[in-house]
Every structure is written in structure tokens, then in C-alpha cells.
């Protein structure tokens, strides 16, 4: 189990795939751990990528700072990991909290990455997201990690994913519960106490950017991704059909395929962001469909865009 050293803390990471290949670095969501990217490692390595995953400070097998974990420290840890990858092209993807960390990285170290994929991400705390975050933190404090998981599972995953697991949810939750500590998760949540919106800084992101958003993402809905699409110059927004906030868990094959195709397009100089809005296929390998012209992608019902 290799570790990077950031100050007094150790960050556990894993590298897979050929050393000289283009690399994908994947950043966990707040309650996750790097093993959850296992399917992505397999899929992306089979397509010729190198894959780097790690536990954020406060997560899994990385050190868990006792009182404070700043988001700047997470960005620095990510910077260390990317420094381990040599000089080849690096694509950076992250889910939810990890998506936020990738945005911060792209703003500060944009020259180090060839492409960016924020997934279920946000650049600011809308009133809904802030209040939901506060409620989740209270849930963690009063009910522990298990109760937080109880809140997140139905919020972030579909009925079709949950239904076959209903009799076995404790087993689904167990590894996350074992590996994550309440005070460390709380520290990660409390890293938002001094959060400042990244929205004004998004135009600094020069890397090609594919923004992925689940069709039914309740926690970070379309409007938050729209902020990214409008702010990041070379971006496209891709809506994942029938998907919720944690679609990287639920639709790993499709998402890994989208990541690979994005990187291949960028490397072949075929990528054109154009702030376009796309609908992803239902399955890996299918075609992307442009969002129907004239309709408002921020609405859940087919409402025609107001003409300006």
C-alpha cells in the first residue's frame, strides 16, 4: 500500500496500468474510499490508460487529521499524486466533493491536466445544498456514519439499484462504515464552513471539460452543473439518463466508457466543448445525443426555451 507524504500526514494511493500511458486520476466523494473505483481501474486500464486513485485526507487508509482538514490540503495532496505520474497527459475526474476538489485543482494548476471531468459537482452552495449539507452533518453527529449512509443511499441511488439489495443493505454499508470515522467525516463536512464560491474563478479553467450530471440528481441538481457549463469556457454538459447523484457507483461501465471517450477525443484533438448540452447513451458504447434544440435542459418537463 503506497503512501504520499503531505506535511505530517500520509495519503494512501494506488497506481494501475502502464507507466507511459495517458493517466486518469479519480477523486472520491465525501463518504467514499478508493476501492469504489475498482471497475474504473479495470475498464480504463483495458483501454490503455493508467489509473490513479487515492483516499482523501480523512478517508479510508489515508491519515485522518484530528481537528481540521482544509480543502487546500486536499488540493495539495492531489497535486502530489499528479506529480507522481510523470509528464504524460493527465485527465482528472471527481465525484461530488471530489468533483469540487478537481475544480479547485483545475483553477490552481490547470497547466497540469489535459482534461477535466467534474461529476455530480458544484462550484457554490445553493440554499438547498447548504441546508441539505447541514442536515446530513447533523445526521452524522446524532446517528453516526450508519445513519448518514441511510440518508445518502435512497437520496443518491435509483430504485432499480436499491431494490435487489433491500434485504442486505447492512452488507452494502459495512465497508464504508468500517473504513470511515465519524470525526473525520465531520471534519470533511466542516471544511465547508469557510467555503467561498468558486463560480467567479471558473473561467480560469482552460482544460477541456466534460461535466457529468445524473438526470435525477437530487443533491446537486442540474442548476449547479449549469453554473459549471456557463463558467468553464471549453466545456460540455452531459446528462446521464435515469441516473442519480451517485451514478459513478450505479453506472460504472457507462461512466468509465464516457471518461475513456472524452480522453480519446481530447488526445485526438476531436474534442469541442462549445458549452453544448448532450444526453449520454443508456449503455456503454452507445451514441451521445444532442439535447433537443429549443428545449430547456434545466427543466424536468419539455418546456421550450424563452426566446431572447
Amino acid at each position, binding site marked *: 500500500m503506497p503512501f504520499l507524504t503531505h506535511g505530517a500526514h500520509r495519503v494512501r494511493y494506488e497506481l494501475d496500468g502502464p507507466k507511459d500511458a495517458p493517466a486518469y486520476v479519480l477523486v472520491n466523494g465525501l463518504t467514499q474510499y478508493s476501492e469504489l473505483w475498482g471497475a474504473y481501474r479495470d475498464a480504463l486500464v483495458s483501454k490503455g490508460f493508467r489509473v490513479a486513485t487515492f483516499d482523501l485526507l480523512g478517508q479510508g487508509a489515508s491519515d485522518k487529521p484530528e*481537528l481540521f482538514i482544509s480543502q487546500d490540503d486536499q488540493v495539495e495532496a492531489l497535486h502530489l499524486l499528479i506529480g507522481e505520474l510523470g509528464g504524460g497527459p493527465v485527465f482528472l475526474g471527481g465525484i461530488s466533493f471530489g468533483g469540487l476538489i478537481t475544480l479547485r485543482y483545475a483553477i490552481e494548476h490547470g497547466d497540469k491536466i489535459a482534461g477535466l471531468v467534474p461529476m455530480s459537482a458544484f462550484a457554490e452552495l445553493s440554499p438547498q445544498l447548504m441546508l441539505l449539507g447541514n442536515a446530513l452533518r447533523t445526521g452524522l453527529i446524532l446517528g453516526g456514519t450508519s445513519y448518514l449512509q441511510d440518508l445518502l443511499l435512497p437520496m443518491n441511488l435509483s430504485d432499480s439499484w436499491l431494490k435487489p439489495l433491500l434485504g442486505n443493505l447492512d452488507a452494502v454499508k459495512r465497508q464504508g462504515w468500517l473504513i470511515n470515522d465519524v*470525526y473525520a467525516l465531520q471534519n470533511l463536512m466542516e471544511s465547508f464552513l469557510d467555503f467561498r464560491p468558486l463560480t467567479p474563478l471558473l473561467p480560469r479553467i482552460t482544460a477541456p471539460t466534460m461535466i457529468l450530471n445524473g438526470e435525477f440528481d437530487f443533491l446537486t441538481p442540474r442548476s449547479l452543473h449549469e453554473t459549471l457549463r456557463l463558467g468553464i469556457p471549453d466545456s460540455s454538459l452531459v446528462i446521464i439518463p435515469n441516473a442519480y447523484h451517485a451514478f459513478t457507483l450505479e453506472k460504472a461501465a457507462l461512466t468509465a466508457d464516457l471518461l475513456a471517450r472524452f480522453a480519446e477525443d481530447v488526445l485526438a484533438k476531436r474534442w469541442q466543448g462549445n458549452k453544448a448540452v448532450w444526453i449520454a447513451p443508456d449503455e456503454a458504447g452507445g451514441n451521445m445525443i444532442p439535447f433537443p434544440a429549443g428545449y430547456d435542459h434545466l427543466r424536468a418537463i419539455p418546456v421550450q426555451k424563452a426566446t431572447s
Partner: protein
Amino acid sequence: MNQFLGPLDSAQRIPPLQQTRIASFLISAHGALAKQLAINLPGQLKAGWQTELNAQLHREAEIVSLLMRATSWVPDFTLPYQALMWEAAWLPKAIPGISDQVLAMTIDIAALGHAVHGAIRPAALLPEDVSADDPFVVALRRIEFESSRLIQAQIRFLKSDELKPVRAAVSTAVEGRHRQVRKLWAELLAGIGITRHAESAQAEA
């Protein structure tokens, strides 16, 4: 070395020697917190947040009482030496950089509480097939659950604006207490054939 307690007996219970050692350690640690709170709790509360300290005192005592009754005890001749070592470890420590001795002692008690409630996760030692109705199992789950609530008082105090001017010293004190508690916990677990990678790694770091 295993990650979880066991092997379980035919009734899916934890072996009595493992129960005895874990309960002894937890009684020592939570008992120390109860004693320190009893000594330092003001007779007349002066601030709202101090009401939490009164609750803490009684919950720590409850944990001790619960373990006394829920554990299947067996004689263990290593305990007197180990208990002495633990009790010595919990004694109040000076905190370099903080000259106000009352404040330093309060920070040290909070740091020890943070470490005991945050770094020790007894329920995470339970295998999946353990009896859910066994009193010792229920006690470990209850202690871990209560710890995540009890630690809130320490978090509030140690992260408070009041301590901003001495934040570096506070962080060092908390890190030190965590290192100490993790090391003792890891040693105890190693003595009953358990290793938990994260705890060992952080104890060694």
C-alpha cells in the same frame, strides 16, 4: 492476525479473554475521563456549554457500569501490569505553549476525550455473524454510538474561536493524545490476535 474478534463460540459470542481485555481497556479509558470530569466540573455551572460536561460525566460512568455487567470476565494475569500502564497514560499532561495551567488541563482532558471517543471503535471489531443479542456485543455497539455523540463536546471546544490563538498547540496536543491512545489500543488488540491496518499505521506514524 485477524481483523475481527473471534473465533466465535457455538452461540456466536466473543471469546471471554477478548471480552475481558477489551472491557478492561475501555473501563480504564472511560473511567479516567469520568474521574477527570468529576474533578474538574465546576460545582456551579457558569456557561451553557458546561451542561454538556455534566452529561459527559454521567455517560462515561454509564459506559463503565455497562461494561462491568455486560462482559463475560475471566482471570487475566496480564491485566494488573497493563492497567497500571494505561492509568499512567491517562494522567494529565502539560501542553507546551500554553502557560495558563487551568486552560492547558482543560485542553488536555478534551484532547484525551477526543482520542478515546474518536480513535477507539470497538464495534468495528465485531464480525458480521456475531450474536446481535449478546450483552457484550450490544455494549460495544452502544459505546461506539455514544462516543460519536460524546466527541461533539470535545470538537466544539477544541475547534472553538476561543482557542484560535493557541490552535497550533491544541492541534499538537490532540495529535499526541490520538497517537498515544491508538498505540495502546493497537497493542491491546495485537495481544488478542487482532490487527487493524489503519490504526496500526496511524499509531506508528
